């Protein structure tokens, strides 16, 4: 599969603050790629750099093979990309139907049938001013304006924020159906349950650096929580092995998070004469929290 998004050592500094620090990421065509990270980790800055809204301090990036730091290329990128921003702020003086009419003029491949279907499904009032819409309705409208563009890449920044559970489910189903039709989806979210539900690839960013880049299947299969009890107290240094992400040693007990190499790690644990060993799969949330805590 070809890479739709690629960045090489991408950096963004705001004064002395390094928002993004040498990011190398790649998003494959046709995938649903989740972009996870805490608030202020650099997700939105990265997305804005991809769309030419923020200029990289150094490094390079491309979307559909076009450079993100070139104004003409950026314009061509945005013809193929539908972006739904985190705050979902739209022109509040326009009505719903006015902003739909406004937006569709920029996208020759606008999907009119899909637009009508989403208007009904989201129960959006065409004549109502945007300033009179609730936050949830505004989010639905912003998503409609993104989904109906007929674009090849959908970039969503916290797409389900402010939506009720039913609407969240609707949106996730739409994203999945669009992927089935060949659209690549790159989305950031704090809702890890949603990410687990639809993503097939996970990128995790922490303080501007990529800390995980793996297919979801691999994450689910390979990440393991290993808890072991030993007859004598153990030291963290005894467990510095390839594949171990975090180590917490307390007296005779140790808790490990392994991203790969689990068999070798278990062999090592048994070699240290562990009396009791438990191996359990980890949820994405636990992995995320583990990564963030380990780095802090």
């Amino acid at each position, binding site marked *: 599969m070809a890479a739709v998004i690629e960045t090489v050592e991408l950096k963004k500094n705001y004064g002395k603050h390094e928002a993004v620090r040498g990011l190398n990421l790649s998003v494959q065509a046709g995938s649903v790629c989740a972009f996870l990270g805490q608030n202020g980790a650099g997700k939105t800055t990265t997305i804005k750099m991809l769309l030419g809204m923020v*200029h990289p301090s150094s490094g390079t990036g491309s979307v559909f093979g076009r450079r993100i730091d070139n104004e003409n290329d950026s*314009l061509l990128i945005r013809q193929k990309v539908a972006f739904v921003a985190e705050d979902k702020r739209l*022109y509040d*003086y326009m009505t719903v139907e006015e902003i739909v009419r406004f937006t569709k003029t*920029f996208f020759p491949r606008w999907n009119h049938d899909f637009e009508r279907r989403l208007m009904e499904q989201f129960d959006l009032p065409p004549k109502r001013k945007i300033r009179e819409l609730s936050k949830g309705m505004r989010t639905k409208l*912003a998503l409609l304006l993104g989904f109906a563009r007929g674009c090849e890449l959908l970039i969503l920044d916290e797409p389900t924020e402010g939506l009720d559970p039913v609407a969240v489910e609707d949106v996730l189903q739409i994203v999945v159906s669009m992927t089935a039709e060949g659209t690549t989806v790159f989305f950031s979210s704090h809702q890890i349950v949603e990410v687990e539900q639809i993503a097939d690839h996970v990128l995790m960013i922490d303080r501007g650096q990529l800390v995980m880049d793996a297919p979801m299947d691999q994450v689910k299969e390979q990440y393991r929580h290993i808890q072991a009890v030993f007859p004598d107290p153990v030291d963290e240094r005894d467990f510095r092995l390839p594949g171990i992400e975090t180590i917490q040693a307390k007296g005779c007990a140790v808790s490990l998070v392994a991203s790969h190499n689990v068999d070798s790690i278990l062999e090592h644990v048994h070699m240290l004469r562990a009396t009791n060993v438990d191996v359990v799969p980890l949820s994405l949330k636990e992995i995320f929290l583990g990564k963030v805590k380990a780095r802090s």
Partner: protein
Amino acid sequence: MSALLYKAWRETRVRFLAGLAAVAIICIFQIEQHHTHDFSHSGWAGLGIPDDYGFFLWQYLYVYFLQQGWALFAVLLALDGLIREKASGTVSFSLGLPVSRKRWMFTRLAVVLMESAALSLFVVLVVIVGSAVIHQTFSLSQVFLHAVLMVAAGVIVIALGNLCYALFPGNYRSLLVALALLGVPYLWIQRHVQRTRVTDLPEPFRARAALQLTRLRVPHQPWWAHFDLAHAMAGPWQLNLTTTPWVALLVIWTLTALVLAVTAAHGDRIDY
């Protein structure tokens, strides 16, 4: 393109309508002044210029009050753009569309220019109606030409207003900076070149005025007189192809192009 024009119009129309009301009030007030006051003893009358209604319109509208009112609203209309959208939170949506920043800027400025021109032409309509009410006649072509000249020379007001908004975001801050940037040289130049205005008078009034103003020494204009924006916007009383201040207009258009280029370059560098 039409969608962008429509959006810019929606965002500026309240200010535009306020501008229409303001220029109408200025015109009606001045026309009413002419109707109720005797100007035959005014300073201009002392220079040998008769109580001419056309001269009155030029002097009180295009040289002073209307010009200043129009310039104020041209600045107000120009205080807009992606910077304002950054403050209101809609810039991510706008820049997510396949539209370059320069196109956003120039489309918006095109709308502001059209609105400014409409303000100026609206004045012609008000003058026609107002003059009919007070039973005065005037040269319609002269009023129209002055309206066109005011916009042609006033484009720099729009460009500077927009630059000020880009460099000093915030309605009040940018307005104050723009007014200072335009107002200080405006007043300073006015103070020094006021007397040269006599040269704008057609004969025989110019000769009479020159005789009466014995201190008048205007063999040639100083170089900075080409930056006399008020003079360029008002033009001479009798405006035609030969009396149009072409040099001043060329200077203004060159400066406007420079200001627009700086604004566009600055806009391209901003992180949203």
